[in-house]
């Protein structure tokens, strides 16, 4: 079975939610929508307090090249616009909307009459851009930029990321099982805008139902498409690792997938593209996995962007008294939040609730140079060195040992017997060098 070299084997714990169908939850009476939900510059808020907004209406527009539009997921009224920390700590404006639950509930997105043959490539790109679609795998990079390579680059392979290698998360798994046709229709759309010679769906072998579904469905599509089962290993879904495993192409250090003619899109992103083209529906909701060891009954929920965590909690059984850590995303790369005062954004693949036992931060002991981190690092770096150089503020040396090749997947810190916060130190170095312009 195809895979990359090195990596780690965490307990996957996906059984908690992998068989639970995607459930649409009721509307929250209030949405809090951050104007920064993607990689890049914050969106510019274009509504003001007291404005009536309609479902799908643009409420914050992209500012700058790497940015994305944000739309209202509901009918309602803007109650407040104020700055607040987003997940991860950066400050951003938040648009608070009082939801007109009745009006929103009655609204149905109409299917458009789409003739793919007549659809121009620019038109598709513009629709993707207007819809505010970003990578839903977690990195939230604006999708339209990925699909418009510079003139001198040709993209001939689309890799569909269905690896979902993060433990606990099952939102992509459920999408693949339940929305395979929609995802494949989105692939047809992408095939219109890129000169694709080959399309690969990479799925980890622990999702046999998803692999089976796609193997059956692809026969109905006239696409050069192949389902590639991947070995269950973390970080199988990391872009560079996935590309290497499925295409044998190596993305050079400091380069992007498009430099080797590849574009990678998450299955959730493709589903969003399908909705944008076939329903004119912007990205206003996503599937979120709720799980964790203090969650008795979790699930995969279709949630409007901006829905506060507390609203979702009524759909799950979680022992909040026993919850000591709340994580946005997966346990390997997700971000811990200090309170429940956050809402779902485009990048929220999951919310995990961990017990004291799981949340305990173990005491750091000296590095014994065991080399476990090096055996784990999929990028073949020396994480122990990166961490110790960061601690010693050796900024020139740390750049020489490929600091920027680290994608912070966490494999090193996951295996470290000395419990050194390797990823934290690497991030510290990156931020310090950036802030001080070194």
């Amino acid at each position, binding site marked *: 079975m195809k895979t990359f070299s090195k990596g780690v084997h*965490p307990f996957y714990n996906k059984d908690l939610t992998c068989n639970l169908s995607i459930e649409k939850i009721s509307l929250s009476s209030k949405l809090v929508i951050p104007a920064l939900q993607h990689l890049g510059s914050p969106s510019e808020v274009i509504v003001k307090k007291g404005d009536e907004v309609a479902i799908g209406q643009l409420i914050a527009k992209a500012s700058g090249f790497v940015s994305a539009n944000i739309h209202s997921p509901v009918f309602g009224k803007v109650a407040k616009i104020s700055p607040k920390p987003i997940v991860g700590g950066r400050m951003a404006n938040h648009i608070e909307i009082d939801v007109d639950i009745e009006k929103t509930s009655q609204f149905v997105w109409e299917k458009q009459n789409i003739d793919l043959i007549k659809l121009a490539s620019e038109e598709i790109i513009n629709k993707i851009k207007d819809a505010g679609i970003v990578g839903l795998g977690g990195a939230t990079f604006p999708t339209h930029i990925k699909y418009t390579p510079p003139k001198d680059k040709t993209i001939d392979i689309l890799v569909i990321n269905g690896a979902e290698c993060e*433990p606990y998360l099952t939102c992509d798994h459920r999408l693949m099982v339940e929305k395979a046709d929609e995802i494949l229709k989105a692939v047809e759309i992408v095939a219109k805008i890129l000169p694709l010679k080959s399309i690969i769906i990479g799925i980890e072998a622990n999702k046999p139902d998803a692999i089976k579904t796609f193997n059956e469905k692809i026969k109905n599509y006239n696409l050069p498409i192949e389902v590639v089962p991947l070995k269950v290993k973390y970080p199988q879904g990391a872009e*560079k690792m996935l590309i*290497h495993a499925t295409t044998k192409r*190596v*993305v*050079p*250090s400091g*380069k992007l997938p498009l430099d080797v003619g590849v574009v990678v899109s998450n299955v959730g992103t493709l589903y969003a593209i399908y909705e944008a083209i076939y329903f004119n529906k912007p990205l206003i909701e996503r599937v979120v996995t709720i799980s964790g060891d203090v969650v008795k009954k979790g699930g995969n929920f279709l949630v409007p962007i901006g829905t506060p965590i507390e609203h979702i909690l009524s759909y799950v059984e979680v022992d*909040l*008294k026993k*919850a*000591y*850590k709340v*994580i946005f995303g997966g*346990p*390997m*790369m*997700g*971000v*811990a*939040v*200090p*309170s429940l005062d956050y809402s779902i954004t485009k990048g929220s693949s999951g919310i*995990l609730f*961990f017990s004291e036992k*799981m*949340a305990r*931060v*173990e005491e750091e*002991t*000296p*590095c*014994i*140079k*065991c*080399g476990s981190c*090096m*055996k784990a690092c*999929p*990028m*073949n*770096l*020396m994480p*122990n060195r990166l961490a110790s150089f960061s601690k010693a503020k050796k900024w020139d040396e740390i750049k020489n040992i*490929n600091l920027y*090749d680290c994608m*912070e997947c*966490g*494999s090193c*810190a*996951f*295996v470290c*017997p*000395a*419990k050194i*916060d390797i*990823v*934290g130190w690497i*991030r510290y170095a990156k931020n310090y060098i950036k802030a001080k312009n070194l």
Partner: protein
Amino acid sequence: MDLKKEGFILSSSPHIKIPVSTRKIMFLVIITLLPTIVISILYFGLSVLVLYLTAIISCMATEAIIKLIRKQKVTSIFDGSAIVTAILLVMTLPPSIGWQKVALGSFIAIAVAKELFGGLGQNIFNPALVGRAFLAAAYPVSITTFSKPNTVFPFLADSVSKATPLAAAKFDKVFTDISSLFFGQVGGCIGETSSLTLIFGGIILLIFGLINWRLVFSYLGTVALLTTIFWLKNPAVYASPIFHLFSGGLILGAFYMATDMVTSPITNIGNFIFGIGAGILVVLIRLFGGYPEGVMYSILFMNACTPLINKFTRTKAFGS
């Protein structure tokens, strides 16, 4: 805990970690050494047990005192690393050495080789071997006086002084038979005499990935290869490669000393370089040097080279 008041725990990703700690690694190493410890007590008598205990107490006490002086956490003495050093040091000493010398060697091992460099993880040289090197320099006679183990009456070691197989081979050209070497019925240091239990423990460490097979096999392989060449040239003067592999401290050194994580290279190529370099040194010392045995110096010398090896064998990042 009031969650609303104190907030949830914040920490950098990843939020899950494997249940392996430095302490667990050290205690696994100790467990794999237990068969050899038991065998050595059976062969050389209860006095050896006293030596082990002396070394453990001395190592831990030394570390505790230094941690106190440096105002660091004293609890680190329970991480198991001092115990590993103590056991390995005793294993490199002859059974007839007195407990006072063991205590002194333990002190040097921890105080000079480990704590002076900054404690666990910072030392350049293997502490146990530094302890032994100190004793070898300070008490050259005691450290080369060996008794033959008594396997007929366990616990009653006979005190007849006996040359080690390596010394016999080197100076008298008398080659001990292999089965005696393998099961430990030879004169020698406390932990060096039974290759069988050492290899058993070493294999467990290899299975758990706690020692690097590249180092072990390149070290043993180099010794085997070079001694084969000399043996084929003149078997009357040079002992067989099997003899060289299973005599002296080579097995102990290859599985437990050279592979010390802290003092051996972290890169895969570095481990090969270390192993080959140490192998060449052992053969040079055993066949042409002044000492019958060269394992200790071969490892200490390569320890000194390790920072350099690490520097020149950097890994190549994916895609560069």
